[in-house]
């Protein structure tokens, strides 16, 4: 396990690890939009003056339900592969936190409908209700994030399973949980900034003018997100102890750690460019997006390395090898490509054939 991730593992293990990480990256992108987007919407609603239009709040209100759908859809793929990679640990944590998993379903349904409720004229016309509705949605999503965080930490701590079961505790007590969740939530801000930037850019290109100040607000959100998430990451690194810190910059994770750090710099440069730009914003958004990709990919890999090194991972190789024997991967790959083409065609049809709405 001295080679950079995912090398140094038997073929099937490396294959499932890589597939898992890539699918999780897609989930993280949309989940970040939901988590940070709902938070930002709430802040804007609390601070906003009634009667003034707020492009960012409008965009968020319009797109958050879709983003949630996308986060859930994208979450299913890593959910599948994690069961192959860490079957027993994942199931055990699920069973021990069963109240959580039974509550997540209603929480997400409520969160979903609250996001849709934001779009109704009834809620739009009532500033206090708007804030209440968004607070409710945010609470649902934070609860979901908390549950995943707790599940992740519990799954990699085998020693805690039997005592927790015997104690009938509904909560896994671990001092990493809240700081870790804070890190996820703050880390979601730069992703939101990049995606909002693209949405504004597209709007502008479609002929609706967007004020420079709005782009600047987005750039500030991204830069501020990088700073606070960075500070939080540093604090979290202090908390996890020397062994985990060493693994985060050990041979398996180092290239990815470096990629993530470089990604932060590139992303930051993209945001600075966006802040200053009067035109050609697509270029700066492209740079910020490239940086963001490396940040998410790099941190997702480092996150995985910390789990691999915390459990008896080699004992799981035979299970991965057994799973790899079943057929069907070409079927998947074939349909993945076909359906990706069809999905692109559907999006193109919708975007190019739809008549512009009356101004």
């Amino acid at each position, binding site marked *: 396990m001295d080679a950079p991730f995912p090398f140094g593992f038997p073929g099937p293990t490396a294959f499932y690890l890589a597939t898992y990480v890539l699918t999780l990256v897609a989930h993280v992108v949309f989940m970040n939009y939901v988590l940070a987007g709902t938070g930002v919407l709430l802040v804007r609603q609390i601070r906003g003056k009634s009667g003034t239009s707020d492009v960012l709040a409008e965009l968020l209100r319009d797109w958050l339900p*879709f983003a949630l*759908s*996308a986060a*859930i*859809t*994208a*979450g*299913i*793929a890593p*959910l*599948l*592969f994690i*069961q*192959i990679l860490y*079957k*027993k640990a994942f*199931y*055990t944590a*699920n*069973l*021990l936190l*069963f109240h959580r*998993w*039974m509550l*997540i*379903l209603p929480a*997400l*349904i409520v969160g*979903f*409908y609250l996001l*849709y409720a934001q779009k109704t004229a009834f809620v739009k016309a009532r500033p206090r209700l708007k804030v209440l509705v968004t607070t409710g949605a945010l609470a649902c999503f934070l609860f979901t994030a908390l549950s995943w965080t707790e599940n992740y930490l519990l799954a990699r701590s085998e020693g805690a*399973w*039997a005592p927790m*079961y*015997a104690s*009938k505790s509904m909560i896994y007590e671990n001092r990493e949980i809240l700081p870790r969740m804070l890190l996820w939530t703050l880390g979601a801000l730069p992703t939101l900034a990049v995606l909002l930037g693209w949405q504004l850019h597209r709007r502008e290109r479609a002929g609706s003018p967007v004020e420079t100040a709005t782009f600047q607000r987005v750039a500030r959100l991204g830069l501020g997100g990088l700073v606070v998430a960075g500070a939080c990451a540093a604090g979290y690194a202090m908390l996890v102890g020397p062994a985990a810190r060493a693994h985060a910059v050990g041979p398996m994770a180092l290239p990815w750690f470096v990629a993530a750090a470089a990604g932060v710099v590139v992303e930051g440069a993209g945001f600075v460019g966006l802040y200053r730009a009067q035109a050609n914003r697509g270029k700066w958004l492209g740079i910020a997006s490239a940086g963001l990709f490396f940040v998410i990919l790099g941190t997702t890999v480092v996150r995985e390395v910390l789990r691999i090194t915390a459990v008896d991972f080699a004992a799981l190789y035979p*299970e991965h090898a*057994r*799973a790899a024997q*079943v*057929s*069907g*991967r070409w*079927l*998947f790959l074939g*349909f*993945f490509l076909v*359906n*990706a083409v*069809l*999905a692109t065609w*559907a*999006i193109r*049809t*919708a*975007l190019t*054939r*739809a*008549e*512009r709405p009356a101004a």
Partner: protein
Amino acid sequence: MKTAQGTPYIITVTVDTSSLGVPYYPTNDFGPLMKGLVIGGLGIFHVFLAQFAIGGGVLMTYFEWLSGKGKLPSARRFTSGYFKVLVLVSFVVGALTGVGMWFTSIQTSPRTIGLMVDTFHWVWATEWTFFALEVIAGYCFYRYGDRLDGRSRLFLLGLYTTAAWFSLFWINGILSWQLTPGAWLESGDLWAGFFNPTFWPSLFFRTFAAMAIAALVAALVISVSPFERDEQKELLHRAAHLLAPMALMPLLGAWYLLAMPKDSRSWVLGGSPAMSMFFGLGAGASLLVGLYALFGLLLRRLYINSATASLLIVLGFAATAGGEFVREGARKPFTVRETLYSNAMTPAEIVTMREQGSVTLDPYPLRDAADFPNDQVRLGAKVYRFQCSVCHTVGGVNGLVHLAGTWTAEQTRLNVAKLQHTKPFMPPFAGTPEELEALVRYIEWEAASRPKEFEVTSDPAELAQIKRWLDEAGTAPGYTTASEKKR
């Protein structure tokens, strides 16, 4: 090396017992509620909504096509309203209950879902690509449909419907494999398992059920929408076309029943009162919907208002509930036929556990261990937790105290030792005579309202008798008849 007793219906499973690693999981206690009810309840809800999503796609594609041909001018207005209902109900609750199914399946039987994932993960991943396509095409229609020309609308709806139906196609293969794994048992070939004996009847049945559900929801939407009376009538009549294939459901049901293993069929057709009742519920509710569809909507003899439409939807839900309970129940005593028993043990592991004990290696202590009067009862409680609690409770639904509390000790020993013959939809007992005796004492202790003091039994003659009974019962499932055993 150990070999499970083979019969013509049971494959011989040979395992190297030294590598045997039964995964032990923490078992949650749902109190008086049986685990099966928890997952069954959510499952029915999810299946109903998922089928609505598929049938809804078929219906809207049909209506869009009618509108394009100029045959139904009000179709477009209807489609836009109906699609909003579909998105708000099916995209949200349908999609999330789908995710919820993962979590509840893990709660009920992690080992079963693990085996399903191991065997079919690429099929599942393929299904996911269709699900993603369904969501994307659906959202494109939802957001832009009103501003699109007819051809583009038809394209998006067609894509949405095809993707939704293919989701059903893939999942249907996995679910039907659980009951009838077919040639997969011998060859391990994925496609032999996927295109198993109940695959086609189940696929067609579900497709027609989906169309029927969508037509019923359409009837409700039409009856509450501001259409002219004549428009309403025409829309209802057209929507009812999707109910017509229901006429084939009895045939498909019969095909499905015939393709089932003989013993499962016998549970449904009278062998198990609960299962027969659910079968009757499903068939009866479908019949009522079918009759109303024929007279009311297709022959235009009756008008349908929102109250009738709602009632028909409730009947449709009852039919789904009946069907799903039959599907879940008919698999007993297995979750994956001849591979994994309902209590998550393989046939080969039962052989080993008869000698080594079923909970010897269980790392999870009892909760409230101090409440038990002695180690024997504690052992019995652990055996109950590991082998029985997936289908039974202690004193609630299907409670052991109700079922066995009035038996004599002798009777309980015999019935548990020959569990698979006591009721053939139960698996063979999988422990040592000492574990069995402990289980008997645990049931008696619970039946006696948990007294503080409770005698420990350890009569060697009784243990020897239990051993004899266990040997007589063997480790093959109980539905193997005497003549099959001889063969």
